[in-house]
């Protein structure tokens, strides 16, 4: 029974992080119809900034609760980077064929990957003090890190917050209107350029948040972005490109399958995930929750 609970918690933990990455990717696609190949790098950027900021302040001392808030430097930095990238690199390309949009984000991926190597060097950054600082819980006969529970809570709060933001605020209405019909929204007086920047920034913020909350547990490693991107792809393909509900369900499915995979079929775990995406695309090209 305890092992089952721990498996469920691990699935949720994984789903929480994946939702933050994939949710942002999906939001960006939903609003501006761009598949951002560099999205994983924004997640990694958030992780590196968070690790760097905490590392500056903690300096070997025992962590205080305030330090956990310093992790927020990650998402803020990722959001700021996004707010710069969208108007400069992506905006000139909206009217061009999709090939070019994919290519420019691929170029961005290459640049950001090395930019992080340039700034923080080739070695991983870790802030495991924050992970250990929370201690652990006993569940039946096993122990479980409290920090993992905190990540699940943050993921759930982010999902709820995003839902409220998009379905319950004025900004959400404008965002959804632009997503459904950009020209019509523009005709109604919506400043589409501004909505695009805001949506892109929000998506990057979520990716950065995902990076920041995994840092205490896993550290910040070069290449983490490229790996995460493909799994985020699997999530949005299963859920439907552009759908937030889809990203949530997709993240939960991938979380569960991955946990099962690690336990029962470790060799083909990744292959099963990619095949799942391919099968969903075949049966429902628009994903489980897609509109198209």
């Amino acid at each position, binding site marked *: 029974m305890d092992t089952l609970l721990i498996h469920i918690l691990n699935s949720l933990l994984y789903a929480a992080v994946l939702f933050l990455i994939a949710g942002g990717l999906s939001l960006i696609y939903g609003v501006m119809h761009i598949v951002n190949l560099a999205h994983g790098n924004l997640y990694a950027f958030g992780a590196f900034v968070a690790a760097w900021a905490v590392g500056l302040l903690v300096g070997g001392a025992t962590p205080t609760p305030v330090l956990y808030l310093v992790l927020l430097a990650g998402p803020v930095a990722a959001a700021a980077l996004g707010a710069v990238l969208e108007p400069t*690199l992506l905006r000139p390309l909206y009217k061009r064929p999709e090939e070019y949009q994919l290519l420019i984000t691929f170029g961005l991926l290459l640049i950001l990957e090395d930019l992080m190597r340039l700034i923080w060097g080739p070695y991983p950054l870790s802030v495991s003090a924050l992970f250990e600082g929370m201690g652990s819980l006993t569940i039946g006969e096993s122990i479980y890190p409290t920090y993992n529970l905190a990540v699940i809570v943050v993921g759930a709060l982010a999902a709820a917050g995003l839902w409220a933001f998009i379905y319950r605020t004025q900004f959400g209405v404008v965002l959804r209107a632009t997503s459904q019909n950009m020209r019509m929204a523009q005709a109604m007086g919506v400043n589409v350029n501004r909505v695009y920047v805001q949506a892109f920034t929000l998506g990057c913020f979520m990716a950065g948040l995902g990076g920041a909350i995994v840092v205490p547990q896993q550290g910040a490693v070069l290449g983490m972005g490229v790996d995460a991107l*493909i799994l985020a792809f699997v999530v949005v393909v299963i859920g439907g490109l552009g759908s937030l509900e889809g990203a949530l369900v997709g993240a939960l499915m991938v979380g569960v399958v991955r946990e099962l995979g690690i336990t029962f079929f470790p060799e083909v775990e990744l292959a099963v995930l*990619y095949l799942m995406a391919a099968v969903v*695309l075949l049966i429902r090209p628009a994903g489980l929750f897609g509109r198209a």
Partner: protein
Amino acid sequence: MSPVPSGIRRPLAAAGPIVLVLAILPWVVEPYQTVLLSYGLVFAIAALGFNLLLGYTGLLSFGHSAYFGVGAYAVAFTVKYLKVGSMELLLLAGILASALVAAIFGLVCVRYTRIFFGILTLALSQVLWSLAFKFFWVTGGTDGLRVPTPTLLGVSMGAGQDKMAFLAHRYYYYVLVVFVAATAVMWVIVHSPFGKALEAIRDNETRAEFVGVQVWHYRWVAFLISGVFTGLAGALWVPLNGLTTPDILHWTFSGEIVFFTVLGGFKTFAGPIVGAVVFNYLKTFAVGYTVYWQMFLGVVLVTLVLALPTGIMGMVARLAQKWSQKWKRTLAP
């Protein structure tokens, strides 16, 4: 009447001198340069195949690493398990394996276009990557599989012969011959009625269907041919590299294939060839010059997309046009 049809006289006239230069090159430059060029020519075959889909059929695949990798691993497996040493048989193995995989993946992928096609090809190629990565007792995992020097046309590398000399001369000519043959075949394909039908599909799918082109079927055949060319390149690449690793199955390598095709210009026949060769030089230069070579390539790619979307060949064509106009103006009083 000349025996050569007039339609191909011009391309032959353009290609002849280039092939001649390529043929005498090993006698002029250092072995290292020849080996480097061999890599470029191998990538050019892959890019030619890739561009049949992007440039001629209008489908952007982000999963062509799959066919390159299948070609390479087919060679490595044939050497390891069947103890085959003949390069001709190894090429055949690479072609058959990549044809099989492209036929199956193509069946699935050509039902979609645009971004869905791209993501589907990417997802399927990642399946192969993760298998090569995880089944290390078969594939060697990240260590890869070593491939010894094969025999070319039944002649093996002499005992005690320097491998670099072998690669720079005999293997270079082998690659060159396969490259010229592959280019000729691709030229015939894109100028055949089949190639024209693909262009019709790219430009207007509905109209092509109205004219009686079976869109789905044509796309599948294009996918198959494209995969086979890329697989052939993968098979040729292995002896050159001496080793095959999961890196060539990873989606970032697919990205590089897209990169060099766009670098050369995907709207022209020769663009992918030029792009592959130039990219290979660029990457080798950047890797040797700085650890931040990815950033360098990324900046090149971003600049290319923003400022030179037609690639090197597009730029050359524009400059040529400009100069010819200038000439006319100076000649005409």
